[in-house]
């Protein structure tokens, strides 16, 4: 019986308005995330049966393959590709991928049908038919690259070629066995304004691995520095050392600017330190991750960040930390006690968590109206920074940078105003105790 009382008390203490609110917001955020992801995935699968194709072959077999694709239920959109400059071709036609049937296609099929073999690893095989696949890397997020792309193109064309081959001639079982896979997919990946002969699937696996770490670091730094600054301000207020300082013969501005500059220096050291450490880690990892991918292709495509890239990334990281600093100064000043200062961390946590989680899974640029909601959160831009820099979307990068500077100016002004007025001693906020205040008011009225 006594245990029940104890248990009740403990539960009541743990289930405050703060913790319940945290739970509700988290659940809502996750449900929303699920909805967004569902939509994005649906779109990708919808697009999976659409094939953009350029037929350079004048022979009959390519036509047969295209017919087979249509019969198999694919929606084939035929276009004209005249040059090797795939960057230009994709841009001008506003498409993200294209299958190219080369001029030699029909003659190659004829070779297959004739049972012409080539040596491969000391064994005789029937040479597969070349098909080109060009794709553009649009995003570093998981669903952004879930464009079933080359896999679908390959299996579709393979199926079509097979049906053509089997239909045109009764090959012997031995001969069919020699056809390991009838199609050799020659892949080209376009990144930003560069192109290289490499599989986009391999490249995006590489890029995803390397871009995973920055958001984690950004998230940890935001939470860590906000906690650090908020605790510092809240303790000064609760211990009343702030009152002592502000009644001393120093200006309020110098007390505040000392705080801000110290926190800025610490933030800058963090940002630089993590950037340097991260770049070394990436250098070390490139070899092992790349594995299947040629590292020269990676730098050729600009998928490896340059020093300039690291500086740009560091700049947005630093801005995020400064915004965190300004908000934390304000929130810390609102704290009444140590417990309330913890619950005041909540807004920053959500502002960092939502774009962090989303940025891993979806490309914000595909979100439609929701995109602007995400862009309104200043941290979003830092979570997107690496993708914007690598994929060369400098408009979005600098737009985000300017927005972050504006937000920083706003929050800094608010923080300075708060510290320069006597509001710093009269204002206090506590999510957890709102309920109690309400109760007190009601009692008064009664």
């Amino acid at each position, binding site marked *: 019986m006594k245990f029940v009382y104890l248990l009740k008390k403990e539960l009541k203490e743990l289930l405050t308005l703060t913790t319940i609110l945290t739970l509700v917001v988290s659940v809502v955020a996750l449900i929303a995330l699920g909805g967004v992801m569902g939509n994005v995935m649906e779109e990708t699968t919808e697009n999976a049966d659409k094939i953009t194709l350029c037929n350079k072959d004048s022979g009959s077999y390519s036509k047969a393959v295209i017919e087979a694709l249509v019969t198999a239920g694919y929606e084939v959109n035929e276009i004209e590709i005249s040059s090797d400059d795939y960057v230009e071709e994709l841009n001008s036609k506003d498409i993200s991928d294209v299958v190219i049937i080369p001029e030699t296609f029909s003659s190659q099929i004829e070779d297959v049908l004739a049972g012409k073999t080539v040596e491969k690893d000391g064994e005789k095989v029937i040479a597969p038919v070349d098909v080109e696949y060009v794709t553009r890397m649009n995003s570093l997020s998981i669903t952004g690259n879930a464009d079933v792309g080359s896999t679908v193109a390959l299996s579709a064309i393979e199926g079509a070629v097979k049906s053509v081959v089997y239909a045109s001639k009764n090959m012997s079982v031995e001969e069919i066995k020699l056809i390991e896979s009838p199609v050799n997919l020659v892949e080209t990946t376009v990144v930003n304004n560069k192109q290289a002969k490499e599989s986009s699937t391999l490249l995006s696996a590489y890029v995803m691995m390397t871009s995973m770490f920055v958001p984690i670091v950004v998230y940890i730094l935001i939470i860590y520095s906000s906690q650090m600054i908020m605790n510092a301000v809240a303790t000064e207020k609760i211990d009343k050392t702030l009152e002592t300082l*502000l009644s001393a013969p120093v200006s309020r501005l110098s007390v505040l600017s000392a705080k801000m500059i110290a926190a800025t220096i610490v933030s800058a050291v963090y940002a630089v330190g993590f950037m340097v450490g991260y770049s070394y880690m990436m250098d070390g990892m490139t070899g092992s991750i790349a594995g299947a991918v040629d590292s020269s292709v990676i730098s050729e495509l600009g998928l490896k960040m340059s020093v300039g890239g690291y500086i740009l990334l560091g700049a947005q990281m630093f801005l995020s930390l400064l915004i965190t600093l300004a908000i934390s100064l304000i929130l810390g000043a609102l704290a009444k006690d140590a417990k309330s200062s913890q619950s005041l961390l909540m807004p920053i946590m959500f502002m960092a968590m939502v774009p962090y989680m989303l940025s891993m899974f979806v490309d914000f640029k595909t979100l439609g109206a929701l995109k602007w909601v995400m862009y309104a959160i200043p941290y979003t831009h830092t979570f997107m920074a690496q993708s914007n820099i690598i994929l060369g979307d400098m408009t979005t990068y600098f737009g985000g940078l300017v927005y972050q500077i504006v937000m920083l100016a706003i929050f800094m002004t608010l923080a300075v105003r708060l510290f320069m007025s006597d509001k710093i001693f009269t204002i206090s906020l506590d999510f957890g105790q709102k309920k109690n205040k309400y109760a007190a008011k009601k009692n008064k009225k009664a």
Partner: protein
Amino acid sequence: MANVLEVRELSKQYKKGVYASEKVSFSIGEGEIFALIGPNGAGKTTTIRMIATLLKATEGDAVVAGHSIITDPAGVRESITYLPDEAGAYKTMTGKQYLEFMAGIFAPDKEQAKIYIQRATDICGLGDRLGDKIGSYSRGMIRKLLLSRAVMSHPKLAILDEPTSGLDIINALEIRRMIKDLAREYKMSFLLSSHNMLEIEFVSDRVGIIAKGHLLEVGRPDELKEKHGVKNLEEVFERVVKDNEICISPEERA
């Protein structure tokens, strides 16, 4: 002799229409110890914070050593020190580091800072414990450290909000003795506050009785006791509050 502090009809409203202190007027002479006494919520801290330039006065003014809190708050801060009630200190600093830091802020130069640190070290009586982290100090030790900090610069006016509250008898006695000695020896003026009306009469030259934001009566403790024909300040307070019920608006009485 010019007064060190002159408070003129000082009022504060946190919320419009509700006075936390209303038209409070009193003065403190050189070397005088003045105590605001009244129960919790009477408006002592509010009044003190306005004089310490932390809160903006809604109406009225206070002049510290010729500096107005309204027009020259920086000048006021040059003339005062303030010890907030229930104040703490930076827990990760040692007592010595704390005194060095605060001396750096209050002293005009390094020479002066050294003198301040020496004074505070002598006054606080913490001895070797000054080398320990403040986090390991008892309440009494922190209060002594903070008090020594508040007087180390020999300010014209030291403002101490509830300097002995929460302390045991021995510590409270020591603090009271320190205040009295400093006032006598260095002609420092003190503005104290306390909700403990019995102990404050041993330390203060004059007291002001404050309730619900109104300063009801000011005088020497023996004077007040005689006037109301009672034995101690607590009873004086009871009388004064009863006599003044008419003055306090009916809304506030409810």
